[in-house]
């Protein structure tokens, strides 16, 4: 699927990207005018969230492809991307929560983006649990594909509903916690970190795919009555 060479290249590029990203987040970018130094967590939180959305989009596409073509590769990509996506989402929420504590005085706020992201996390944890519980691999693949599709389709609806729920529930003076990336050097830092995390996602996906490859091979051998 993904050759060792490409996997290694992705790993090295990701590492370079992350180091550059760290530098831009802590040295290059200035502290935020309003939030101060704490805002630097956003260079971690925002890329993690955006890349997790990417990961779940990949699950969505791979799930559709699997239902249409039934190629193991698509199922492998869906499963791997879901796992990496759940990891990135969980870390994003944790980082956001840690950011929130000194900024808002609370570990949690029910703001629209954090709420939607948590729901997304729950949906795809459910996806992984479903996979773990279905014994027959091809049936599990089909079920997961369906769940992956409807789960992702639901995300815009969830987002809309939570945003409406918040704005019609609270007065509009509630500020949305988020990156105040107006300054251009802060934007540079953000995009650098974003690129780094995309590369990291690619690397993780490649590594995780190897595990799926091996698992599918094992399944095939078992089904052929070997061992």
């Amino acid at each position, binding site marked *: 699927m993904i050759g060792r060479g490409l996997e290694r290249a992705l790993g090295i590029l990701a590492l370079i990207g992350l180091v550059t990203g760290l530098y831009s987040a802590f040295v290059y970018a200035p502290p935020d*005018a309003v939030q101060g130094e704490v805002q630097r*967590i956003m260079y971690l939180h925002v890329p993690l969230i955006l890349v997790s959305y990417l990961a779940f989009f990949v699950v969505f596409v791979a799930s559709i492809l699997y239902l249409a073509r039934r190629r193991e590769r698509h199922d492998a990509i869906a499963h791997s991307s879901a796992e990496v996506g759940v990891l990135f989402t969980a870390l994003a929420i*944790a980082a956001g929560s840690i950011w929130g504590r000194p900024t808002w005085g609370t570990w949690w706020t029910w703001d629209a983006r954090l709420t939607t992201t948590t729901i997304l996390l729950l949906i795809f944890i459910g996806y992984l649990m479903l996979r773990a519980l279905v014994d027959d691999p091809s049936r599990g693949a089909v079920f997961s594909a369906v769940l992956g599709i409807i789960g992702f389709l639901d995300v815009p609806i969830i987002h809309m509903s939570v945003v409406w729920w918040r704005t019609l529930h609270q007065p509009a003076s509630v500020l949305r916690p988020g990156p105040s990336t107006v300054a251009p050097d802060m934007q540079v830092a953000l995009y650098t970190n974003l690129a780094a995390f995309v590369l990291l996602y690619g690397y993780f996906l490649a590594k995780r795919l190897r595990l799926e490859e*091996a698992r599918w091979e*094992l399944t095939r051998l078992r089904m052929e009555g*070997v061992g």
Partner: protein
Amino acid sequence: MGADPAEDGGGRVNPWPYILAAYLLAGGGLLGYLLSVSRRTKAMRAQLAAVKRSSKETAS
């Protein structure tokens, strides 16, 4: 909302423990995941090798 620590330009609360915590947590989580994937792949490969070996034995 009550006393907002960030209101005075981030003066009162020291942000660095939080920043460190966030980045260390993320780094730890990412590394931990890499290790988990490596471990699981190794285990899966061992299983595969065992299955292939036993098939060779029954074949010969």
